């Protein structure tokens, strides 16, 4: 087990190294000028800025400096917020994105498992069709549409009540988190519902379910101990990447609801060619994703005894 974990972590580190290198190269080959401003720069001012960010050195030297600093956990200073460290940006804003992500994912997975199981049980009935209709809707409609609708609803509710029931935007209290959590979790919930439903339907016809029923086990025990436990495995598999995607992919929701998360900084950085922030955040996100996938693989072993990690490793 330990060997397996170490091996996976080693491979993970290698992946992160490749991500870092690819980002570095991509960054230096995309057209555009990271230090250009609206007004043209005099040569001496440009030189001063290039010196400050080390852009006056050859790309190979910049690469070595970048890797060395990265090993020390230092991603440098932002180009667009020149007195903030990239590390500070991650430290200040990742927790917000993570909290929002965890909330959204909790809602999504609980809802997904619930609705998925429900629709599988009542397959073909009106409830199934109704839920599946909304599932298709939630998968196809982009989150900014739901966000805009939610805001309209909040305005109406607040105007009607004469006080703030639901904040239109902002961050801080539990109430602020409600709408963004639902909007962000909706797509994933719909996706998980479909996954859970098909997984449940596949298991219903398995031999061991028939055996359990034949043994005379009560329906709820068949459902919880055999069906649900087995059907949930594919959901757990996608949960790892989903955690990474949802905690990092909340850009739209963060912008619409004015939430100080990391996703916003990432997109702004890309738009403004903020080299250090792009590289720092990509490596950070990359490492986070790799770590989550490894973590899920390890958890997998605990949930499903059939999967022996040690054997897989050998």
């Amino acid at each position, binding site marked *: 087990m330990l060997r397996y974990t170490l091996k996976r972590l080693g491979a993970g580190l290698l992946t992160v190294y490749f991500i870092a290198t690819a980002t570095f190269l991509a960054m230096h080959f995309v057209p555009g000028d990271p230090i250009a401003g609206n007004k043209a*720069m005099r040569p001496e*001012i440009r030189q001063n800025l290039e010196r400050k960010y080390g852009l006056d050195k050859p790309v190979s030297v910049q690469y070595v400096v970048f890797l060395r600093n990265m090993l020390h956990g230092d991603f440098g200073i932002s180009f667009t917020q*020149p007195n903030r460290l990239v590390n500070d940006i991650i430290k200040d804003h990742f927790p917000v994105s993570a909290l929002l992500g965890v909330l959204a994912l909790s809602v999504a997975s609980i809802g997904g498992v619930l609705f998925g199981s429900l629709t599988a049980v009542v397959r073909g009935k009106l409830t199934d069709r109704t839920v599946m209709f909304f599932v298709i809707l939630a998968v196809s409609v982009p989150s900014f549409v739901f966000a805009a609708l939610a805001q309209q609803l909040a305005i109406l509710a*607040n105007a009607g009540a004469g006080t703030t029931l639901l904040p239109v935007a*902002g961050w801080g209290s539990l109430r602020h988190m409600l709408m963004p959590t639902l909007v962000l979790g909706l797509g994933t919930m719909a996706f998980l519902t479909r996954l859970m439903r098909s997984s449940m339907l596949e298991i219903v016809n398995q031999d061991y379910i028939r055996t359990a029923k034949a043994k005379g086990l009560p329906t709820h025990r068949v459902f919880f101990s055999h069906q649900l436990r087995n059907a949930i495995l594919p959901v757990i598999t996608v949960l790892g990447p989903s955690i990474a995607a949802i905690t990092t992919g909340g850009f739209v929701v963060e*912008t619409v609801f*004015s*939430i100080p*998360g990391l996703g916003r900084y990432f997109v702004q950085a890309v738009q403004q060619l903020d080299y250090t922030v792009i590289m720092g955040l990509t490596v950070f996100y990359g490492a986070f994703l790799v770590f989550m996938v490894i973590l899920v693989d390890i958890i997998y072993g605990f949930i499903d005894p059939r999967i022996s990690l040690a054997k897989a490793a050998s």
Partner: protein
Amino acid sequence: MTPRRLLALLALCFAGLAPLSAGAEPRTLKLLISSEPPQMNSAKATDQISGMLLGHLMEGLTRYGQNGELIAGIAESWHIDDQRASFQLRRGALWSDGKPVRAQDFVFGWRTVVDPKTASEYAFILYPLKNAEAINGGKLPPSALGVSAPDDHTLEIVFENPCGYFLGLTAFPTYLPLREDFYKSERYGADASDLLTNGPFNLTRWVHGASLTLDKNPQYWNADRIHVDRIEIPYITSDPNTAYNLFLDKKVDTLGISKENLDRAQADRLKMKAFADGSVWYMEFNFRQERVTRNYHLRKALQLVFDAKEYVSRVVGIPGTKVGVSLIPAWVPGVNGRFRVEFPLAPRKTDFAEAKRHLELARQELGGTIPPLVWLTDDGPAAGRQAEYFQYLFLTRLGIELRIDRQIFKQRLAKMTAGDFDIVSAGWGPDFADPMTYADLFTTWNDNNRGKYKSEKYDELIRKAQSTSDAPTRMSSMAAAEQVLLEDVGIVPMNERVIIYAHQPRVSGIVRHVVGPDPDYTWITLSD
């Protein structure tokens, strides 16, 4: 379920939660900003939002009054001539930690700006000072800068060249003071605790990406004129719909209205105001050797088919937008009144027959055919509409094909600098209230002259204007230079921008500045 019942149910669901605001509130103005201020180190800040905040938190030698006029700030009186300037600082001006603002703080602040180690993008704005450019280029130490403090309340300045608009520069954020014992180059202005201020408000809280709180500074020398206790910025978002929704929900007091939200605002009967922000927008041609737009007749033909009036009403579509007629826009002051009134330009008319004649001449000179022209522009929706309008106009009127090259901001800048375009849709906003902020744009030595327009006559006239502080000479030289540029069709002015905004009825006295920190909330009163 009726909507009322639904609301009642919702209210019930949230009854357990405490209300968001309670207790006796200070008189608070609530604002939204579109993006986080990148930093609040005045030596390095370049963007509009940092500038707006610094205008409320800091005070320089002078500042802008309610009507855009320069008024005394930390300086009480001054004397400026061609070679030098002297400012008398008021006694009683304090930093937020209670220490007095001294002339030495200006000396340190300005030396910091031109120090190459600071790498200030706006260092050039201090170049009228003796040795500033040489210091910024690393040729002299910062101590060689032409500014000194003979005592705590006197600031002496020596100029490199006469600078007729120097007083206006002293209200610019880059000219703000910094205190040496507090200043740490990398961290200064990164957080509320890393900033020392001396203006009408203090920055009491800054949660990055989320909110800022500015509280009235009771120690400000002119605190009596400030009628709000607090400016709260609880939202930072670039989404115009969210801004609009927050305004409707009365969570913010002001709202910038984009073209996309204009219809909605009209339907909601918002009381809108228009503000000409002083920026001028024009087509800029590429004069590089290999470009066909170097040909005068081609540019003239393009200019003759363009009707700025039609463009403003059909493409820009924002009420109040001024038709572009010149490089130097209507608001700019001249000798005694407005520059544009003192030096009027003959109205420009479309003339399709004349355009065809010029096109024919261009064809002959260019060897028979006109290749497709590259129109470089931004990636925003307005830029798209604009590009398509010109594509249609030039194709139908002249048979000239326009290839639209839409790029994100930084890449457009890179392409402009590299000369990778035939025509670029460009604009310019002023740094100070003098025609020179526009007039020297197309000199051969100006790096903003991205099309590499070159005219000896133009250069000479601008040099003449820059060598004196005599207003009539300066103004007439700049007017003549502008005439040269327009006759050469170096640019084709399109429009002067207007910004539409609204505010809640409880707010009055918002002052908008064409130059200087904008909007200015230091004059407002709140009616509740």
